[in-house]
């Protein structure tokens, strides 16, 4: 079931007072997010990612096209009862304590006082911020602020959570903890829409990824689909004789890296098995071999470079 669906969504911003040139932030953008998945949105700065999230949350209005969240048009505010949002560079009132921040936003979300009190404790414990609940947030570090922001986004037990750079300013251990929280939410059937510059994080967490550039969707798919390599295998072996190296070069078109390493390209499992049989017949020990895979970062950079 689609929890988010957009159709030909476009957003045009009018230029500044002395520069009337319009800026196209989103251009006929169509995509969907399935319920229960962690969806990652990637794109360079100014690609339109934040605009998309803002439209999906009713903060900005689309110029043309439609956007639906949980089957409701984004102009209908009722779906926001079941969404949570952690914006990038969020600004909570600095004069409040962590607990007061959650009580305030819980109240704005329509939670009763009793519900807010109960969930405030639960969520602060979940993000490991319970002992700071009575501390004014102006004393919080960036990482603590992010944890509080995450607790705020989860406060209403939403079905869909939008997170914009959720691990920004958080140390590696904290990142792992947040990843675990998000994966736990996914296990509970929640949908997470993740906007992050940390590609390794997206790679570790997301089921599906969309890449946005200049307001247009340029690629979409599962992480495995996007990072699939070019059928190239790297072999690490015992020392190869001159004859074997010659055979590998002439019969198998292998690329020799050293006397213990070479690359072989083939999409046929039979051919790979034939090569392995050959190596064994030559008394060559295969120490390891693996199929080469692009990192999400490599794929992303290549894709954006090609678009230029």
């Amino acid at each position, binding site marked *: 079931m689609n929890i988010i669906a957009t159709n030909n969504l476009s957003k045009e911003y009018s230029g500044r007072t002395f520069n009337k040139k319009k800026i196209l932030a989103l251009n006929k953008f169509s995509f969907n997010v399935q319920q229960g998945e962690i969806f990652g949105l990637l794109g360079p700065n100014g690609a339109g990612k934040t605009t998309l999230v*803002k439209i999906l949350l009713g903060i900005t209005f689309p110029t043309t096209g439609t956007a639906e969240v949980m089957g409701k048009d984004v102009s209908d505010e009722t779906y926001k009862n079941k969404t949570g949002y952690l914006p990038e560079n969020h600004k909570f009132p600095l004069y409040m304590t962590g607990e007061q921040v959650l009580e305030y936003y819980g109240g*704005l979300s329509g939670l009763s006082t009793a519900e807010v009190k109960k969930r405030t404790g639960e969520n602060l414990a979940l993000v490991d911020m319970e002992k700071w609940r009575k501390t004014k947030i102006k004393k919080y570090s960036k990482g603590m602020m992010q944890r509080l922001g995450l607790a705020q986004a989860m406060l209403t037990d939403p079905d869909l959570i*939008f997170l914009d750079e959720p691990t920004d300013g958080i140390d590696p251990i904290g990142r792992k903890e947040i990843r675990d929280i998000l994966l736990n939410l996914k296990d509970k059937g929640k949908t997470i829409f993740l906007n992050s510059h940390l590609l390794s994080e997206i790679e570790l967490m997301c089921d599906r990824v969309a890449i946005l550039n200049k307001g247009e969707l340029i690629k979409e798919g599962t992480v495995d689909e996007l990072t699939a390599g070019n059928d190239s295998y790297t072999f690490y072996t015992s020392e190869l004789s001159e004859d074997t190296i010659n055979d590998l070069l002439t019969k198998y078109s292998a690329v020799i890296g050293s006397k213990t390493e070479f690359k072989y390209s083939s999409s046929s499992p039979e051919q790979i098995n034939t090569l392995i049989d050959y190596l064994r017949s030559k008394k060559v020990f295969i120490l390891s071999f693996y199929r080469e895979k692009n990192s999400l970062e490599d794929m992303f950079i290549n894709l954006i470079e090609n678009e230029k």
Partner: protein
Amino acid sequence: MKFKALIYGVFREAIAKKIFLGFFGISTLIIIIFLLMVNMDSVQGMVDTMKLTGQDAAKQFVIGSLGFMVDISYLLIITFCIVSVSSFIPSMLEKGSIDLLLSKPISRPQIILGKFSGGVLLIFASLVYLLGAVWIIVSAKSGYWYFPFLTTILWLTFSFAVIYSVVILIGLLTQSTVLTIIINIFLVFVITPLLGSRETVLYGFITNGTIQFILNLFYYILPKPGDLNIISKSLLQGEAVKSWQPLITSFLLMVTCLSVSIFYFKKKDY
């Protein structure tokens, strides 16, 4: 619950920005000075004489004292209104803050009305403290409990509400606290008194009918806190109100400013 949370937010912001404390401190100082004044030997003697001469004299003393307090409260409210609450809307519109607010299941008109109601309640509570205390002191001292004075709290709250609606609109349009303060100070302390004196002073220099018409138009359109204060004092002193026009046009201005604010806020991308 959502509306209550918005009002709670305004009160918390007022407490954090020391607006409440400032008003409470100044009010307490005024109350103490007033308390000392009415306990001075000369005033005590005057009060004793009035008590002997009858209730009318006591009433005059009470009304005179309270009228003086209305003028002080009026100045306090207007100044406080402009300087202190001018930051409410621009701070709400800051990036990172407005995104969070608009992502909540609360409508944009509700947000504007919540901020407005919160500010008005805040000033109402402050006025109840200041004028309520003064009323109790004067009444206890004179033995004459003049209840109509309490309506002054509502009049001053209304004066504040009118200016606050203008503050909200300017805050939304400019998104700047400094600009909001400057524009409102100029409006309330320069333009409004000038327009108020247009017939007695300005028309002596300006004889052109068109310019007079424009000045008249601005007088009716812009807030008239001074004229509202005059109505309030007339009612306090039991005198007939010369014209209710300032009340009607101020009310219309408040409704217009709030409507335009809501319309603008509903359409604006953040």
